[in-house]
C-alpha cells in the first residue's frame, strides 16, 4: 500500500495546485467507483414495493445525502460524527509520515477518554477556563504516553508497531473495563457500568441549543455557548470540532514548517539518510508515536467531554479503526483529513434516512466504505479503470517490512 508523498517545504503555488490535483484525483475516483458499485448492489437488492429499481437507487442516494446534509441538524450531526474522525485520522497520518503504522488509535482513544473523564468528574470547583483545558490535556497526555510505549519498543527492540499497537488496544480496552465496570471509577448509583457525569465546567460546550435537562445529566447543568429553545437549533455540534480543525492546522504546520516535522518526514521517507544526517531514529519514533497517541486521545476526550459527558464501557464505535481508512483516503495529507472525515461522517449519519426511505439495509454503507478503502489502498485498480498514469516518484512506502 502506498500514499501520496510529501509536499515540499516551499513549493510554488502552481506546483502546489498541480500536486493537489494529482493527489486528490485517485481518492475522488475511488469514492466515485465505490458509489457506482454501491448503486449496482442497490439495483439488485431493491425491494419490489418501492418503485422501479432505478427509482430505488436514486431514492437511496438522495436519502443518504438528505440524511447527511439535508437540514441544519443533519449537517451538524455529520460534523459531530466527523470530529473524532478528524483527530484520530490525523493521529494515523502523523505516524504514516514517520513510516509507522499506528493501529492503536482505538486504544489510545479509550485511554484519552478515560483520563479526560476522570479529570472531568473527580476535580470540582475549578473554573471552566482551567478545568476544560486540564481535562483535554489529561486525555492527550495519557494517550500520548500510551502511544509512546510502542514507539519506544519499535526503536529500541525492533518490535513492530503494528503488532504492539494492536496488543495495546486490547490492554486499553480491558483496563478501561476494569476501571468503569468493577473498578474505582464506576458510578455506583448507575445501573449500567459507566463513570459519573463530568463537571459542567469540564464540558466541551455545544455551540447552540437548549440547556440539557439536569435529570438526564446526573445533576449537572450543561450550558451551550448560545442558549436557545428553538428546536431547529437543537444541534449537538460542540467546541471539539473547532479543536479538531485547529489540530489539523497545527499538525500541518508542524510537519511542513518546523525542524521537528522535517525530521519526522525524513525518518519516514528514508531512515538511513535520516541517521546519516544526524537525526535520531529513536527520538523521532517515540516522539511521533506520542504525538499520534495524543491526537487519538484528544478524539476520545472530545467524545467524552463534548457528547457523552461520561464514559461507558462500550464507548467508541470503532472511530480509531475507521481513522486508518480516513488517513488512507486523505493520502496522509493533514488538510485532506477534513474532507475525508466529513465524507465518512456523512455516510454514517445519512444511512439511517437511506434505510427509512428505501428499505435498503444501512449495512450497505459499510460495504461502500470498504470499497472506498479497497480502491484507495489498491490504487492501481482505479488507475487502471480511469487510465491514469502514475507520476514518477509519487509512491511512498508508509510501513516497512517486519523487523529491521
Amino acid at each position: 500500500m502506498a500514499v501520496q508523498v510529501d509536499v515540499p517545504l516551499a513549493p510554488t503555488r502552481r506546483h502546489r495546485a498541480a500536486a493537489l490535483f494529482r493527489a486528490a484525483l485517485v481518492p475522488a475516483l475511488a469514492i466515485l467507483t465505490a458509489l457506482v458499485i454501491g448503486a449496482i448492489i442497490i439495483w439488485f437488492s431493491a425491494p419490489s414495493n418501492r418503485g422501479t429499481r432505478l427509482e430505488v437507487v436514486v431514492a437511496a442516494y438522495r436519502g443518504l445525502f438528505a440524511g447527511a446534509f439535508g437540514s441544519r441538524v443533519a449537517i451538524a450531526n455529520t460534523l459531530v460524527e466527523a470530529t473524532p474522525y478528524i483527530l484520530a485520522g490525523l493521529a494515523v497520518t502523523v505516524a504514516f509520515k514517520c513510516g509507522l503504522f499506528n493501529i492503536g488509535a482505538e486504544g489510545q482513544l479509550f485511554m484519552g477518554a478515560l483520563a479526560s473523564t476522570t479529570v472531568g468528574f473527580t476535580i470540582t470547583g475549578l473554573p471552566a477556563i482551567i478545568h476544560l483545558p486540564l481535562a483535554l490535556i489529561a486525555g492527550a497526555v495519557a494517550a500520548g504516553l500510551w502511544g509512546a510505549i510502542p514507539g519506544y519498543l519499535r526503536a529500541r527492540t525492533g518490535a513492530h508497531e503494528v503488532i504492539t499497537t494492536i496488543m495495546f488496544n486490547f490492554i486499553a480496552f480491558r483496563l478501561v473495563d476494569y476501571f468503569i465496570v468493577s473498578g474505582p471509577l464506576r458510578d455506583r448509583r448507575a445501573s449500567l457500568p459507566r463513570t459519573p457525569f463530568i463537571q459542567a465546567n469540564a464540558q466541551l460546550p455545544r455551540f447552540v441549543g437548549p440547556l440539557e435537562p439536569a435529570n438526564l445529566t446526573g445533576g449537572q447543568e450543561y450550558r451551550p455557548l448560545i442558549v436557545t429553545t428553538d428546536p431547529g437549533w437543537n444541534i449537538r455540534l460542540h467546541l471539539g470540532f473547532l479543536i479538531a480543525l485547529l489540530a489539523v492546522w497545527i499538525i500541518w504546520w508542524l510537519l511542513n514548517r518546523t525542524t521537528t516535522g522535517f525530521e519526522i518526514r525524513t525518518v519516514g521517507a528514508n531512515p538511513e539518510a535520516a541517521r546519516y544526517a544526524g537525526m535520531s531514529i529513536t527520538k523521532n519514533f517515540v516522539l511521533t508515536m506520542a504525538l499520534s497517541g495524543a491526537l487519538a486521545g484528544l478524539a476520545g476526550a472530545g467524545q467524552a467531554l463534548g457528547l457523552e459527558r461520561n464514559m461507558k464501557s462500550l464507548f467508541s464505535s470503532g472511530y480509531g479503526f475507521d481513522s486508518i481508512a480516513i488517513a488512507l483516503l486523505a493520502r496522509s495529507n493533514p488538510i485532506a483529513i477534513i474532507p475525508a472525515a466529513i465524507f465518512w461522517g456523512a455516510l454514517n449519519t445519512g444511512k439511517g434516512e437511506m434505510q427509512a426511505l428505501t428499505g435498503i439495509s444501512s449495512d450497505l454503507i459499510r460495504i461502500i466504505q470498504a470499497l472506498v478503502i479497497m480502491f484507495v489502498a489498491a490504487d492501481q485498480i482505479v488507475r487502471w479503470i480511469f487510465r491514469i498514469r502514475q507520476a514518477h516518484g509519487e509512491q511512498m512506502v508508509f510501513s516497512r517490512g517486519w523487523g529491521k
Partner: protein
Amino acid sequence: MSAQQPPALEVRNITKRFPGVLANDGISFTLEKGEIHAFLGENGAGKSTLMNILYGLYAPDEGEILINGRPVTIRNSADAIALGLGMVHQEYALVDTLTVAENIMLGTEIVSGPLLDERRANQRISQLSREYGLQVPPDALVQDLPVGVQQRVEILKALYRNAEILILDEPTAVLTPQEAEDLFRVMRSLVARGKSIIFISHKLKEVLSIADRITVLRRGRVVGTALPHESTDRTLAVMMVGRSVVLTVDKDESQPGEVVLDVSNLVVLDDRQQVAVDGVSLQVRAGEVLGIAGVQGNGQTELVDAINGLRPVVDGRVCIAEQETTTAAPRHISELGVAYIPEDRKGTGLVLAYPIADNLVLSTYYRSPFARGMRILANTIEEQARKLVKEFDIRTPSIWTTAGSLSGGNQQKIIVAREFSRPIKLLVASQPTRGIDVGSIEFIHRSIIQQRDDGVAVLVVSAELDEVLALSDRIAVMYKGKILAVLPQPEATRERLGLLMAGITDEHPSEEKVNGSTG
C-alpha cells in the same frame, strides 16, 4: 561468419520520447554475430533507455528492431527472452536465499510431475558452465557468493534460457580488476561460440581492450562508431562529452598540516557481526588526501561508517580535530566539521522523494540560517538551493524537482554541494564518483582537490584505482579489514596496488593474512 549473414540484431531509427526529454533520437546500429559491441555514453545519454527498449520494458515511439534480419516486436521481457535476448542488469535479479541452481532455473523449472527435477537442471547448468568457462557452485546459496560469481550466475541464467544476444549493463562496476579480467575471458569465450554481446560501460580503458566496435551515445543520439585500434581513451572521452576532458586531476604538491583524523587500532563489525575492520590505524593531515584503495567489501564501508559515528566501534579509537569521537553521535561528528559523501548515494546520501532544495539542507536544516527556533525558514533554504544549484552546476529543471528524478551525476553533485557548503576540517568521501558521467567526475574531483588546497584533510575511499591514483597524496591499500601498506602517490604504481589489493605483499607472495603494514 560469412559477410552475407544478416546481423544478429539491427536497430533502425529508434526514437523514444519521455515528457520533456528526447531519450533516444533516431538511433541505429547493428550487432554482428560473434561481436562484442560496446556502448559508451554519459549518464542520461540514452543507453539505458535503448537497452530497456530492446528488452521490451519500453515501447519505442518510432523505429524498428530486426533479429537475424527479421523485424520483431518486443512487448515485454518474455518476448525478449523468447527472441534470444538476455540481459544482465547492474543490480542482479537473484534471490539471495536460493541456491545458484534454483536461481538459474527460476521461472523455467524443469519438473517431473509436481516435483523439481534438480538433477537434470544441475546437469544442464554444469554443462553450460563448462562450455563457457563460467565456474559456479550450483549448490551454494547466492547470498554467500562474491559479486563476481553472482554475476556469472546472471550470465548463466541468460544462457540457460538460450540467449543468443547478451546485454551486459555496466558489468564491471562492482568487480575487482581480476574479476573483470575473468569476465572478459568469459565474454571472449561466449563470442567465440557464436554469441553476440552488447557491453555497456563508462570505463574507456575496458571498452578499448574488449570491444570489437564502440558506439558512442550523447544526448540520445549516436555520435559515432569507433574501432578500438583506431581510438584512444582521449578520443573516446571527447566523443562522449563533446569536449576534451581532464582524465587526470591537476594538482600541486600537498602541504600537510596538523593531524585532523587519527584512527588507532580500530575494530568494527559488519552487519553479520563479523569483524570487518581489523585493527586499522591511520592518520590524515590537513591539506592532504589519503586514498584507500581496495576491492569492495574489504572493510572500507565499515571503516568510514565508524569514523562518521554510524556504526559502533568495538575496539580502538577515533579522534577528529583532537577530540575523541569513538562513541560520538553522527551529529556531533558532523558539527566538528566533518563532511561525509556516503557510498550509497540513493540509499543513504539523499531522500529521493524530497526536492533538491530539501536535500541540500538535509544535515543543516536545524540551524541558522535555515531555522529559527523550531521554525524552518523556507526562504533561506530556497536561496541556498538556487545558489548551490548554480555553483555546483546541478542540472535540473527546478530546485523543487525530486532528487530521485535526476541522473546519478547530478544526484552526487547535490551531496557534494551540501557537504561542501559548510565549513569543514575533514572530508570523508566514499566512492565519490561511482557510476556517474565523466563531466560530473571531473567536477567532483576538482572540488575535492580544492577542499584539500583550502586545508581540509581528505579521506577518499574508492574501488577505482584511477580515481585513487588521481586524487591521493598517499595511498593505503585495504585488504580483509587491514591496511596492508601506505604508499606515497609517486611510488604507487597500478601493478603494485593491484597486487596489494589481491592481498599479495612483497614479504608474503601468497594470499595469506598479513599483519602490520609496510611503507
